[in-house]
């Protein structure tokens, strides 16, 4: 629904507000649009000679109208993307309407019909504000040789170089320390998470949480996991030695029906490149384990 609404909004009003930033303005926006559409429907009904209408029918018609407009928007977007553009043009809309079985030729006449009601644009109550975080510092004024209609300078932090006075951490020892503890934390968190979420074994009968061991699970084909290098190792191989190229591709193409656990592990533990991914379950795991301790 939210998605449809966003598309409809884009097609209908042509503006894409920053509704994603928070949920409340989006709701407001939604309500406002709804209201506008209701007004439109009501005026059309009035135009058609109705004096009153049940709420439900108005709602239904609103819904239909909204769907219709959404569909126009969606199709128009597709057509425009089809021609490798990002902004729909009039012809996109026209093609869309034609495609939807609408006789475009009648449209100018309809638009100029005499008895039409003019609805005032809804008051823009809360123009979504661009979030503060993105603007930092004072935008630099244009130098004299740049005409003023040119876009403004971007925020200074995007181009200004400030020399730092504190040495970045390049000390080998600290780096190694950091890398080691980071990896250790990640591993610990990840394994704890796995242990929390799955079956475990314990070395102490009275305590199952301090040293949780992920339960041993037999494989149907144990030698595959034991012998084949993991994806992580393959990746390392690639980095350290490119002469083994063909061998790797062979292995990578293997159908992986080995074990879901392993695949998960390999994709998550892929060192720094995917550290973010690893951290995600890790965080939860830490939270959970922190509670346990």
């Amino acid at each position, binding site marked *: 629904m939210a998605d449809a609404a966003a598309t409809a909004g884009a097609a209908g009003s042509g503006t894409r507000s920053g509704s994603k930033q928070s949920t409340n303005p989006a709701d407001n926006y939604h309500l406002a649009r709804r209201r506008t559409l209701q007004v439109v429907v009501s005026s059309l009904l009035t135009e058609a000679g109705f004096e009153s209408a049940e709420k439900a029918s108005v709602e239904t018609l609103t819904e239909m109208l909204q769907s219709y407009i959404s569909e126009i928007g969606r199709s128009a977007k597709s057509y425009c993307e089809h021609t490798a553009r990002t902004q729909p043009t009039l012809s996109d809309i026209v093609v869309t309407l034609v495609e939807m079985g609408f006789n475009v030729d009648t449209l100018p006449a309809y638009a100029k019909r005499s008895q039409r009601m003019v609805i005032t644009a809804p008051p823009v109550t809360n123009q979504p504000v661009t979030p503060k975080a993105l603007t930092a510092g004072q935008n630099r004024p244009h130098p004299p040789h740049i005409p003023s209609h040119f876009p403004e300078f971007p925020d200074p932090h995007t181009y200004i170089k400030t020399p730092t006075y504190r040495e970045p951490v390049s000390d*080998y*020892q600290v780096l*190694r320390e950091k*890398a*080691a503890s980071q990896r*250790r934390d990640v*591993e*610990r968190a*990840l*394994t704890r998470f*796995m*242990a929390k979420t799955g079956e475990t*074994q314990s*070395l*102490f*009968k*009275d*305590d199952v949480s*301090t*040293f*949780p*061991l*992920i*339960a*041993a*699970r*037999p*494989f*149907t*084909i*144990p*030698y*595959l*996991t*034991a*012998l*084949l*290098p*993991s994806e*992580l*190792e393959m990746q*390392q*191989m690639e980095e*350290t*030695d490119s002469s*083994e190229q063909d*061998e*790797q591709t*062979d*292995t990578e193409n*293997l*159908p992986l*029906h080995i074990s879901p*656990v*392993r695949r998960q*592990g*390999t994709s*998550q*533990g892929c*060192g720094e490149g995917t550290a973010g991914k690893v951290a995600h379950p890790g965080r939860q795991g830490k939270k959970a384990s922190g509670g346990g301790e």
Partner: protein
Amino acid sequence: MPPTGSDPARMNRKKGDKGFESPRPYKLTHQVVCINNINFQRKSVVGFVELTIFPTVANLNRIKLNSKQCRIYRVRINDLEAAFIYNDPTLEVCHSESKQRNLNYFSNAYAAAVSAVDPDAGNGELCIKVPSELWKHVDELKVLKIHINFSLDQPKGGLHFVVPSVEGSMAERGAHVFSCGYQNSTRFWFPCVDSYSELCTWKLEFTVDAAMVAVSNGDLVETVYTHDMRKKTFHYMLTIPTSASNISLAIGPFEILVDPYMHEVTHFCLPQLLPLLKHTTSYLHEVFEFYEEILTCRYPYSCFKTVFIDEAYVEVAAYASMSIFSTNLLHSAMIIDETPLTRRCLAQSLAQQFFGCFISRMSWSDEWVLKGISGYIYGLWMKKTFGVNEYRHWIKEELDKIVAYELKTGGVLLHPIFGGGKEKDNPAPHPHFSIKHPHTLSWEYYTMFQCKAHLVMRLIENRISMEFMLQVFNKLLSLASTASSQKFQSHMWSQMLVSTSGFLKSISNVSGKDIQPLIKQWVDQSGVVKFYGSFAFNRKRNVLELEIKQDYTSPGTQKYVGPLKVTVQELDGSFNHTLQIEENSLKHDIPCHSKSRRNKKKKIPLMNGEEVDMDLSAMDADSPLLWIRIDPDMAVLRKVDSEQADFMWQYQLRYERDVVAQQEAISALERFPTPASRLALTDVLEQEQCFYRVRMAACFCLAKIANSMVSTWTGPPAMKSLFTRMFCCKTCPNIVKTNNFMSFQSYFLQKTMPVAMALLRDVHNLCPKEVLTFILDLIKYNDNRKNKFSDNYYRAEMIDALANSVTPAVSVNNEVRTLDNLNPDVRLILEEITRFLNMEKLLPSYRHTITVSCLRAIRVLQKNGHVPSDPSLFKSYAEYGHFVDIRIAALEAVVDYTKVDRSYEELQWLLTMVQNDPVPYVRHKILNMLTKNPPFTKSMESPLCNEALVDQLWKLMNSGTSHDWRLRCGAVDLYFTLFGLSRPSCLPLPELGLVLNLKEKKAVLNPTIIPEAIAGNQEAAVNPSSHTQLVGFQNPFSSSQDEEEIDMDTVHDSQAFISHHLNMLERPSTPGLSKYRPANSRSALIPQHSAGCDGTPTTKPQWNMELPRKGTGKEQPPLEMSVHAAAAAPLSVFGKEPASSKHSEHHHHHHHEHKKKKKKHKHKHKHKHRRDGRERGRGPLAFPSPAGGRSARSPSLSD
């Protein structure tokens, strides 16, 4: 391709002693094996064999073949139906209701049973009668074609099915099957002459699913699709005469790789492993080239196939033109440690292709020649590939192994001759098994046997030079090649068999040297030599007085007489002396060359010509001796304990260039914990030029010395600063460099040092905190991202190091171990182990080395009382479905737990696994581990030792392991370790000496007592003729089939199973009849065994001629009752019954006996009318003897 009708026997005779006298009255020339259906779901195989044989005696009227487990439907000779009897005494060695429980009795019975079916004694389980129509044909020595239809259902040995339980077709699941076994075990999967000495050409056909590949011996002639295109038939042709024992088969959805260097070589592996296969086999061609070059002989077969399969029986199994390997040998380029091991396996199997497969042996007593030669040329390959140091190190290792084994358990005899009158009555060094037959040997003994064989070959090489040695091999090979190309002259094929005498003759022909004394010493005799050397320097005479004593009275030793080399390093150089060791001379005077006055500043020449500066301040000012080595070339199979001063050992370690000498010095220095030793060891450890294995050994020695000197030790813990210097960052010494394993030598050192360091102990006998922190830091800062190689072995060793650092927990009045009282150091260790073990689940390491180490470490923590002792974790890891290394590690822990906690439950669990585990390797290993680390021994009182256990183990070795020779021998080993040779002490004494045989109305000796008397009789044990008596006496014919309706699992391989099914099929046959054969032999000591099996037609009337047996039911319809009625008194059919009935209350818990009795009664009435019908049809002469081949010969029945 039948050869011409020449008479091989006559040919043999002509050639005299060198020729081969076949023990069989016929010559096999060609065999067809056709397996037309393999069902992976049911694990069954259906097929036929066709043997082309030429009789060599005129009156051949029965043909004995080997067959086990196979269900035989039908036998035809030259298209005529032939009667046959199937009888396998090894199914149940001793009577199940016998109360006899002493091992002496068992091993005699077992040896007798094995030789009763030994093809090399002309015997076999399957005895086929030549139809009388063909007698004339036979008398003309004309060809016979024996056609046998057989099937195999859920084989427990011989063929191993691996069927993973996942979704998909069999091919998608990676299901495969392969042949396996110990020594000649081909009889387990098709009927054949299962002897290494019966060669013939082969045609092999296997029809398999179209997605599968069948790999077998010889050339793939063609593959033909069946009409429905669902299946393919692989036709293999092996034109080089080969023994059945060298025939193999592997079927599976293999990925195929044609060797890029040698197109005649093809590699096969299981799905998805192709990249590993490529890497692993990329080296093989070099091994080929090496062997072909040294042997100056082409690889004898036209093709070679390597197959890598899962759940392998042994890591390497060589068969004719094909080797079967464990899939676990495959590795990627990132793995360091496995690479040399795998290459060694490949080289080993290839060496056996030449000697073992192509050249076969005449008899078991010639096995040492084959194992010796293949091991020896494999050693040459090692020398060339890994260098002289590695080779010498390996030789020393092997020598130490064999010496340790022989001294511990008794001698290893390479060339057992039987029946020969000489002093062969060597008081049997291995009382609990017979060495007369490969199938009765303990596996450990067999490994040691192979080890000794190649060492002895090396001794021969020392004597006659390598050049001659290779000439001899070349001669053997070229003779064999010539013989093998004689397609139609089967009598020539015996040239492809090697015998001890033939081999020795070749040696003397080629070299002109007499090596008889050497052979007598090491081949015909068992035992090793134990030298004690000590010396004194006589300053006045400038003579070294060397005293060499020998211990030749301890078991496993022998006296050495002959030359012995001694190398003396003096100040002026190194000098070799050859001493003559004689009966009574102990002291030897060796003149010294150098004056004891030391020439300062003069370099000292070493053995290899190198001249070095030495700091001579440590040595004795009066003596010019730096060090002395006794037998430096390992030219004697010996153990040398020589006494030298500590500084001499130190000099030897520092300056002697031979790695063996260095290692000897290291092990000697353990006894001298002094700062000087420390310095010497540290220097060696640091020396880059020094052989890495020596440096590794120095690590452990240093740790030991440091512990002995703990109170006076100064400076940081041993090796720490060294490790820091070698492997840690310059700027921050507590952080290890990121891994770079390009230099393998430093890699191995880096792995080993922490493990050794963890053995350090402080004054409180705890691992120093500093060391533990150091190891934990190594783990923490371990970084393998930039490394080309995997660090899994390294990390595993770090865990081993952690485990080594664990010391026993201080226990306050046996409190229960909980988390709260956990030692903080242990907490850190446990933290690491937990993390590693858990990470293994997500990112498994190669061969799960880390899991293995973690499991071991956890067991160490349990054993030291830090963590509650509990086997459940290990039991879960020991389950089928884990990688085999993990399982073994877990099982080892359970075995250890069983011992420490004396847990009956775990012992039972282990024994159940021995019987039921799908992987034979695991079954063997459990028995082996239990034997190595027994829960109790014969000299120990233990609550575990009770009658039920005795019975259980007895049953295991008696009948539960008949499908696997090695397993049975393993069970025997265990039984021996637990209970010793005689009757286990926990058994009650047999109460009754005499048993009244009610049926026969006579008294017999209680069977639990008699055999003891017999077993005590050494004559009976040694003399083969009395063996036959013993067989008869013990009545080794099985009754295990009694359980058939109750326990289908134990019956699959038994005759009962076969007969059972035959009867279901309502097929006429005899095998089943051997069931319930009269147990006459028990009560009456009549030597009856094999009396009539030499081909004389005396017992003809007994033979069953395809009786139209109307199977009345599913019950095994044995005819014993009819026989019982017919065979009157003297040989009671149920001689055994009275014994058991007498003891019936006593036996009540032996349910199998109980069942048996019941069952017999059940059969009784059934057979009454059965017999009637039969007699109507055939008359008394034709009724099949229920005793199978054996009672057939008993006089009472043939009357």
